[in-house]
């Protein structure tokens, strides 16, 4: 057994002496790592989901802006856009919001024309006037199933009943959770939308490279529009769930700061007892480097075991228990929050970054304060 291992042995023995203190530190440390890793896992999974799933989104969405507000877009804009070279199909989309003041939820109402069966739908899409299809989240929240009827109050204050003909499966919840699909003609009647207008236009562009040029051209030819490219949509989600930006960074950094306070407290709190021990070890023949190695082992033992444990807890929390603890934090006051049935998407770089951000500062905080005591002459222990 080499000297290093023997010193590790002593490090573990001396940590076992201060069980309570070390367990408390490991508990806090593990919790911090678990929180941070949960955030990383959750956001990375959502980011991955968005990046994969929203690839199917329209290449370009063209909105109309009126006095800076999102406004209905005339259908003849679609014909004009369709004439541009490189543009495939231009589909007018009809959709809107319906606010439930009791549950405080905004439902998304979407008009469908195409009755061909989409994947992940039980039942069928609404075909005739008084039918609808719902997202799983709504069905679960209100406890309804296929065959029941949805009661909506339209823009003229009439109460309308829609028979539920289809329910989306929970596997599509991240997309369809709050969705209510109505036949497009019915949705127009419901919102009293004129036939000549649409909510916005979904534009198909064959060549990905040409999207930005087309967006510029559309903006030039139709100055009151605002084209949004698919890449912008993807970029939006990339940004929202990027661990280095926005809300995630806020949560992340506050957890990290809390952790630094813990480490700092431990560091500055090197006790007289510990000082005396360092003196004794030096007096009986330990070198400065041996003492620092001892402290390094202590730091490593705490940080590595906490890091591993915390990461495992985070993984189980996010991917086995559906982010039960973190979910409500991200969800805010959303009532209709999708049940996270997330696909693990792990970025090893992030895990290593997390390891670097937690293990290294902790070891530094353990070793550096001991330094000063380790380099002083051990004769002080003779005079105490």
């Amino acid at each position, binding site marked *: 057994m080499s000297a290093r291992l023997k010193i590790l042995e002593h490090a573990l023995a001396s940590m076992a002496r201060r069980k309570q203190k070390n367990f408390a530190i490991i508990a806090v440390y593990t919790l911090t790592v678990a929180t941070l890793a949960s955030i990383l896992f959750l956001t990375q999974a959502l980011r991955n989901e968005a990046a994969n799933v929203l690839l199917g989104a329209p290449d370009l969405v063209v909105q109309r802006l009126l006095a800076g507000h999102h406004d209905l877009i005339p259908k003849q804009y679609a014909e004009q856009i369709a004439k541009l*070279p*490189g543009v495939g199909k231009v589909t007018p989309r009809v959709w809107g919001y319906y606010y439930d003041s009791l549950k405080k939820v905004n439902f998304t109402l979407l008009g469908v024309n195409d009755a061909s069966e989409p994947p992940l739908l039980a039942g069928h899409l609404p075909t005739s006037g008084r039918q609808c299809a719902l997202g799983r989240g709504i069905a679960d929240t209100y406890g309804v199933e296929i065959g029941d009827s949805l009661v909506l109050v339209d823009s003229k204050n009439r109460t309308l009943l829609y028979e539920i003909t289809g329910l989306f499966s929970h596997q599509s919840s991240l997309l369809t959770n709050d969705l209510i699909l109505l036949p497009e003609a019915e949705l127009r009647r419901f919102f009293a939308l004129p036939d000549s207008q649409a909510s916005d236009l979904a534009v198909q562009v064959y060549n990905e490279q040409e999207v930005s*040029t087309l967006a510029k051209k559309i903006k030039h030819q139709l100055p009151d529009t605002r084209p949004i490219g698919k890449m912008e949509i993807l970029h939006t989600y990339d940004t929202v769930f990027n661990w280095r930006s926005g809300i995630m960074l806020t949560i992340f950094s506050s957890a990290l700061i809390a952790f630094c306070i813990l480490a700092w407290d431990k560091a500055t709190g090197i006790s007289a007892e510990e000082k005396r021990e360092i003196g004794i070890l030096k007096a009986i023949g330990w070198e400065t480097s041996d003492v620092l190695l001892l402290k390094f082992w202590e730091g490593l033992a705490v940080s590595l075991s906490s890091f591993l444990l915390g990461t495992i807890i985070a993984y189980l929390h996010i991917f086995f228990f559906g982010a039960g603890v973190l979910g409500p934090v991200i969800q805010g006051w959303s009532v209709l929050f999708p049940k996270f049935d997330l696909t693990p998407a792990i970025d090893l770089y992030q895990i290593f970054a997390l390891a670097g951000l937690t293990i290294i500062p902790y070891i530094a905080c353990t070793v550096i304060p001991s330094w000063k005591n380790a380099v002083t002459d051990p004769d002080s222990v003779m005079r105490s």
Partner: protein
Amino acid sequence: MRILIYLLLCLLLFSSSCFAKQPQQPDKKERCPVCGMFISPYRDWMGTILFKDDSQLFFDGAKDLFRYYFSLPNKNDSRTRDDIAEIYLTDYYSVRLLPVNQLFLVLGSDVSGPMGHEMIPVTGEEAAKTFAKDHNGQKIISFEQLTPQLIPKD
């Protein structure tokens, strides 16, 4: 009677498109014989030469394709231009493989392909002009007008 002629016409069109040689799609391992790059990541730029013996070569852009075309017969390939059945290029706007005589080539534009400066194949003169306007194209030519000197350098 008119319906009959119409039907015959349809049949003729259909059969001609059926019998004309159609280009195959490249598999994942296909490389460009000029620059050695893989084809499949750059499908939007792909060009292909279909020979009369049914063999087919893929290129990662019009530029490389025409370099090869003008080099025939070369030290690795003894075939001549007469052995070529058809040349297909990917139309910039529709991202479909189309026969080269349906396409115009826009030179000197600001759009670059996998190999840098590129000649961009566009269907129809109108669209070619639009493209040249949008992307600062310098010159529009057809395949017949192409000479080795016109191929962009890099």
